[in-house]
C-alpha cells in the first residue's frame, strides 16, 4: 500500500521540474467547475487532462479550475491559454476529447477546431458540421 514516505521520492524527482517551469512561459489549461460543469462531467475531464499532461511529461503546463464560465449548456468547458496567443475555448468536452486537446493543441500547437466554440449568426454553437453546411 502507498505510504506518505513515497512522497519523498516524488519530491526529489520533481524538484528539477518545478525549477524548470519558472524559467519559461507557461500554458494554462482551465476547466469550468461550477454546479453546471460538475453535473455535465467536468471532473473526469479534469482528471484526463492531468493524466495526459503527466503521461506526455509536459512541464510547462498549469492545470487549473475556475467557476462558472457563463455558458452552462456547453459544459464541460475547457480553455487553453498559450502565452502570446488568443485563448481557445473548447466546449462539450469529455475525457477522450480532452486528451486529444492536450496532445494536439498543448503539446503540438495545433488547435482542435472541431471542438471549439463557434458563433454562427449570433448563436453560440459547437457543431462544426453546421458551419460547414
Amino acid at each position, binding site marked *: *500500500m*502507498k505510504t*506518505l514516505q*513515497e*512522497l*519523498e521520492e*516524488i*519530491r526529489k*524527482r*520533481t524538484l528539477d*521540474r*518545478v525549477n524548470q517551469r519558472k524559467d519559461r512561459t507557461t500554458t494554462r489549461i482551465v476547466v469550468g*467547475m*461550477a*454546479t453546471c460543469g*460538475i*453535473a455535465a462531467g467536468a*471532473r*473526469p475531464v*479534469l*482528471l484526463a487532462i*492531468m*493524466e495526459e*499532461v*503527466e503521461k506526455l511529461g509536459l512541464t510547462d503546463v*498549469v*492545470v*487549473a*479550475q475556475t*467557476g*462558472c464560465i*457563463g455558458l452552462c449548456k456547453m459544459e464541460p468547458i475547457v480553455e487553453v491559454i498559450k502565452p502570446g496567443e488568443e485563448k481557445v475555448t473548447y466546449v462539450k468536452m469529455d475525457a477522450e476529447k480532452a486528451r486529444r486537446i492536450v496532445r494536439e493543441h498543448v503539446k503540438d500547437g495545433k488547435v482542435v477546431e472541431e471542438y471549439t466554440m463557434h458563433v454562427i449568426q449570433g448563436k453560440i454553437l459547437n457543431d462544426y458540421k453546421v458551419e460547414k453546411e
Partner: protein
Amino acid sequence: MRELSLHIMDIIENSINADATLIELYIEEDTSKNIFIIKIKDNGRGIDEEMLKNITDPFVTSRTTRRVGLGLSLFESTCLRCNGNLKVYSKVNVGTEVVATMEHDNIDRPPLGKIEETVVSVLLNPKIDLVYEHIYNGKKFILDSREIKKILGSDEINSPEVLLWIKDFIKENLNEISGGAF
C-alpha cells in the same frame, strides 16, 4: 448529481469562492446505525443571517452571473430523498459548515463515487488546504494537505504527478478501511 462526491465538490467550490484557505471534509459511514454523514467546514467569509434563512432556495445566490444557484438545493433534495436532511451553519468572517445526513442503506442514496478525484481537484488550488477525514464503521483515514506540503518541502503540490499520486493514495486507503466496499 450521480455521486455524493460530486455534491461535495460543488459545495467545496462555494468555499473556494468564499476565499477559504482551510477546508475540512468529514465523512462518516456507519452501516449498523445506518447513517451516512458528510460535513464540509471552511474558514471562508461566511453567510449573513438574512441569506442563511433561505440558503437552500435555488433563487437565493450570491453569484452575479445569474440569479439561480443550485448547489445547496440539489444537495438538500438528495438528502431529503434519503430520509435525511441538510443543515448549514455560518458566521460572517468565521466560516461555514454544511452538514448532510442520509440513511446509509436508502435505495435513493447515490454512491459516494470517486471522492479521490474530488479531493484532487480541490488541491489544484495551491492556496487551499484540505483535511479529509473518512470513517467507515469505526476505521479511520485522514489526509492533510499541510502534511503533504511539509513532506514535499513545497507549497506547489498541484502538479499532475503529485496529485495523481494522492488520488491513488486515497483510493487504496479507502479500500483498506472499508474492506473493499469502495
